[in-house]
């Protein structure tokens, strides 16, 4: 099935990705940002807060936004 992922971790890429049926939020997160802690990110499914074990549905919109974003001069 196909879902829209918006990864605000770097360049803010928005892409449709193919995932297996039954994929959970935690599993998609691991695919997208391997090795990172989900607690350091704001994850939204269809713009709503979600649990790690929420099973994704076709057409879902998943956004991943870091909670710590460092501003800097220059």
């Amino acid at each position: 099935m196909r879902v829209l992922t918006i990864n605000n971790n770097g360049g803010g890429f928005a892409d449709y990705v193919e995932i297996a049926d039954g994929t959970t939020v935690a599993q998609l997160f691991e695919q997208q940002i391997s090795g990172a802690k989900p607690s350091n990110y704001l994850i939204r499914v269809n713009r709503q807060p979600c649990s790690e074990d929420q099973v994704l549905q076709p057409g879902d919109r998943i956004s991943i936004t870091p909670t710590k974003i460092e501003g800097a001069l220059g």
Partner: protein
Amino acid sequence: MMCRNDKRLLRMAAAIRERAMSGIQKTAAVYLPVAIWQQLVDLHHQLERARERDWQMAEMQLQRDFSAVMQSLRADLEASERALQRSRPDKPFASVDELYQDLKALHEEFDELSFDRQDRTLSVTTEPIELEGVYLGTFQIQLDWSDLGCSERQSYRAIAVEGNPSAANESVTHPHVQDGFVCEGEGRPTIRAALQQGRLLDFFLIVANLLRTYNADSPYVSLDDWHGVECRDCGTTVSGDDRWTCENCESAVCGDCYYSCPDCDRTFCAGCVTQCEDCDEHTCYSCTKCCLGCERDLCPNCLEEDERCTTCHEQEESEYEDDEDNREPVEAIDAHSPV
């Protein structure tokens, strides 16, 4: 059924979308090499006629021409395709429905969401922000949506609502905000992408998270110095223009306590200068010299060229002159010496 507030949000979404689409540069019309194609059609007719009439020389020439024009046509089509690829955006601007869903989510995410159609602004207000024990208060993130989707300039401001600016600089209301402008740092590409694609929820969440984060390596004013610092020498609180930093130990000192070394012109605290034992001037330890005669610590102005104080220098000269007077001329001794 849609409630009154939902209708309001939907109208906002429609206005934002309409404005954004009028600003986004429309993709240039795709170039079609019609003239070259027509040339090819004409050549094809001529070639057929030459074959029918068995004009072999003309047929050979026309075949060469036909082949050359076909290559031109292929090159033009490829160029046209490349131009089309370049002009295609990575992701189209959000639809009215997507904008509406974002606005609904923003309404739930933030305490305050306000929209000004005339000024073309959309604002949310954060919760009170406190970083490393320093209370900064709430911030209104105000987005100017008049040129969303196509602007490279920073089209939003982070306005301190309560205002707890740094003691050092009143225009700095957050370690990464000056005059409302946010120093985006690592958030810059993500913020740009969110705005260009009209992802309003992502944009406001990213900026809010940036305001909730402190990067000690690159602030306008560090949180350690937010409320001003204590003068190392007299203990008063110093900030802004009245603050000086010792260039040796990096302590903060106030305008009454700092010293400027007369020799190197650098700034020091009282602990990093010494008083010249001749003229009482304060000089830094690097510029202070020891008199080679009396071994007192003196400033460079009180030392002669031979690195002695005036007294020792004069004494040295006087002793030298006495020595010279007592010495027998060398020539005279030589003249009386036996050969």
